[in-house]
């Protein structure tokens, strides 16, 4: 990795993504394979005046070790200090910069799926709470690595694969523009405007129609469309939770989802690849889950609690998205979910519902799994309370 490339990416994530403030404590997280970019992120945070940067390394092999050799007591356990830490981080209003770079499927290959499915850290929902409470200015960005490059471009030599992945990441992060931040601000102003118009229409439902898909997603009366362009913490720090981000999203009515949907991209669920996913919804619940590969993992995850089989998010992405334009499957939700419109099983976002009274109806779950259902062949139509049908996306272009 060239230091200059890494530094430019780190700069975007720290200054524009998390928007680290002088005196803040920053948690920087990533896979051990991404340690070089984590060093760049750390240096950039300190240059931005951070009080302290705590780097947390994820070693995916340790989960394999636990699932293979651990006692039943070890599955899904976290030490008490991890809970204390999240609480302290939320109270202090820290920043987080997380790197994401695909998952090495071989690390979790051949494991007992039941044990793997149950091995979810209970601290995850504490982090989700800190995020939904808007206590931290956070961002998640991509970390190109040889390992990830080999998954995305298996037919290339390792050097060519990594070079291609870097170039793609620079493209989708707009680092190939002379002024990446200005470019992002321009793009986000468009998305923010679309989100505002969608919110003003107060659709009763969104209808997705295309090959293998005929799905109506009901919305709450005060469902509000949000984008990464208008996020702020309760402390008033603007931040961009995901880079890149191309979506506008809202929280749907978990009781009113009907029809069937076919995923348009593979998805990665904690290291397990799910392809050709088909889900049928009745009265808001996913009543049938099938897939060409990985269905068992999806079924296990959607059974962890009551809300896990209902929707917490519906997101729209237009064809201007640079990720959609590349046509590359990254096997990484951060990027792939911005390639196409998508829905998510599990927890919904309070901040995407305006009216306090509607918030009690938002789906609750400890999971949140996005999967892609949009493409240029899938039309999206808004349905008003009076039954009027308003085109929203046709051939990947905004109609409103």
């Amino acid at each position, binding site marked *: *990795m060239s230091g200059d490339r890494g530094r430019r990416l780190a700069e975007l994530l720290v200054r524009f993504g998390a928007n680290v403030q*002088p*005196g803040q*404590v920053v948690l920087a997280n990533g896979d*051990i394979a991404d*340690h070089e970019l*984590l*060093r760049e992120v*750390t*240096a950039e945070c*300190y*240059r931005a*005046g*951070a*009080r*302290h*940067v*705590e*780097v947390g*390394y994820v*070693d995916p*092999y*340790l989960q394999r*070790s*636990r699932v*293979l*050799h*651990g*006692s039943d*007591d*070890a599955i899904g*356990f*976290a*030490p*008490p*200090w991890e809970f*204390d*830490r999240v609480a*302290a*981080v939320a109270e*202090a209003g820290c920043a987080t910069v997380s790197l994401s770079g695909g998952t090495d499927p071989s690390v979790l290959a051949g494991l007992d799926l039941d044990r793997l499915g149950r091995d979810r850290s209970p601290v995850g929902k504490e982090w989700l709470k800190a995020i939904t409470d808007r206590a931290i200015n956070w961002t998640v960005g991509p970390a190109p690595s*040889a390992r990830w490059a080999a998954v995305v471009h298996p037919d290339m030599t*390792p*050097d060519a694969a*990594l070079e291609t992945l870097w170039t793609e990441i620079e493209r989708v992060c707009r680092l190939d523009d002379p002024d990446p931040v200005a470019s992002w601000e321009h793009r986000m102003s468009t998305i923010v405007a679309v989100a505002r118009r969608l919110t003003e229409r107060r659709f009763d439902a969104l209808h997705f129609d295309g090959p293998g898909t005929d799905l109506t997603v009901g919305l709450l009366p005060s469902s509000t469309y949000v984008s990464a362009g208008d996020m702020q913490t309760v402390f008033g720090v603007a931040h961009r939770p995901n880079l890149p981000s191309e979506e506008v999203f809202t929280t749907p009515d978990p009781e009113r989802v009907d029809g069937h949907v076919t995923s348009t991209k593979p998805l990665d669920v904690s290291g397990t690849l799910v392809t050709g996913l088909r889900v049928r919804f009745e009265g808001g619940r996913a009543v049938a889950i099938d897939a060409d590969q990985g269905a068992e993992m999806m079924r296990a995850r959607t059974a962890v609690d009551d809300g896990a089989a209902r929707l917490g998010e519906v997101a729209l992405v237009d064809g201007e998205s640079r990720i959609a334009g590349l046509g590359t499957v990254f096997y990484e939700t951060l990027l792939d979910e911005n390639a196409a419109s998508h829905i998510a099983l599990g927890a919904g976002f309070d901040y995407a519902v305006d009216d306090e009274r509607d918030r009690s109806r938002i789906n609750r779950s400890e999971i949140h799994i996005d999967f892609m259902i949009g493409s240029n062949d899938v039309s999206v139509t808004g349905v008003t309370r009076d039954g009027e049908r308003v085109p929203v996306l046709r051939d990947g272009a905004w109609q409103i």
Partner: protein
Amino acid sequence: MVSRLQCHAVDDLFAARLADLAVGFGANVQPGQILVVNAELGREQVARAISDAAYRAGARHVEVAYSDAWVRRARIEHGSDESIGYAPQWQVDRLERMGEEHVAVITLEAALDPAATAGLDPVRLGADQSPVRQAYLRLVVDRLINWCIIACPTPEWAAQVYPDLDPAAAFDRLVSDIAHVLRLDTEHPVEAWAERFERLSEVAQRLTERRLDAVHFRGDGTDLTIGLLPSSEWLCASFQTAEGITHHPNLPTEEVFTTPDPRRAEGTVRSTKPLLLEGSLIEGLQVRFEDGRAVAIDADANAEVLRARAGRDEGGSRLGEVALVDGEGRIGALDRVFYSTLLDENAASHIALGNALTAAVGDEAEVPAANTSSIHIDFMIGSPEIEVDGLAGGERIPLLRRGEWQL
């Protein structure tokens, strides 16, 4: 891009044997216990093997706390003054929680890459002391955790020990050295260590029973008598937690050691191995003691580094430890400087200037007599040519001859 570690991976058998020793004997991880592993980046392979071994032993959870010397470098280089030596309170609280939970701790020890600190501002570097370290020392002193520091080969370490070999050959050499000194090249390493500790604790017990008044080192330019306290007790590195879990805090270890009387050391001593201090190699060290004080410190090179350290406080020029290592010890026989105290201090009998270990003083009332200082610097004074005698009631008792125990 292939990382250096992948070029120089240790074989899985080595990693598994080291892990079994660290988990089953070193820290002695108990079923249901949480294990915390401290590892710099580059030691993943051994850390993962330790995770496997600990879960197999019934650990409730294994947390590997990876660290990166280059992240610290980024702070020293780019951080504000407020960031130097600062740690968020939750990092200190975590250590307290670890004490409450009575966790096990394994630390993978290797000499760090000198490039990670090269050229840094020494004042900022020196001031960057995390309060987390103090919290950790409290866990050790209060005996709340069963812990082990164990040697773990890395390419950066190998380059320092074998600068003349190419990186792959240097790494292979270091791996086989460490396999040897950890007794991983024996059929049953845990049994080999259990036997070794049985011998060391037997020797320690006999030494204590003799109630020696002093220890005398003689030969090869050395003639040094070190007085002991009336209740000085000889120990080997086998500890128990407050709850009674036996553990072996240093692997490898070869020494039996005690706390001397800091007012009674007389004569001259010549070091038998080079001493590495603050990056300087001190060779041919010669120290003259009068009434317990080091009154003259000389060396072929870099004597001033030790003089400066010894002059730091009142106890810095008096002795805090005397340790005996016999010829069965595997480190001295390799005749190599490893640039790591864990290995180097077990190469030969040694003494330490500075702070004493009070656990080696049997009588509570004598603890104030033990030396106190902010430094603790071990240097090697033993070899097969050096005879060691105990003095008790006018009697002279041979302790070591040609590296063999005489009791």
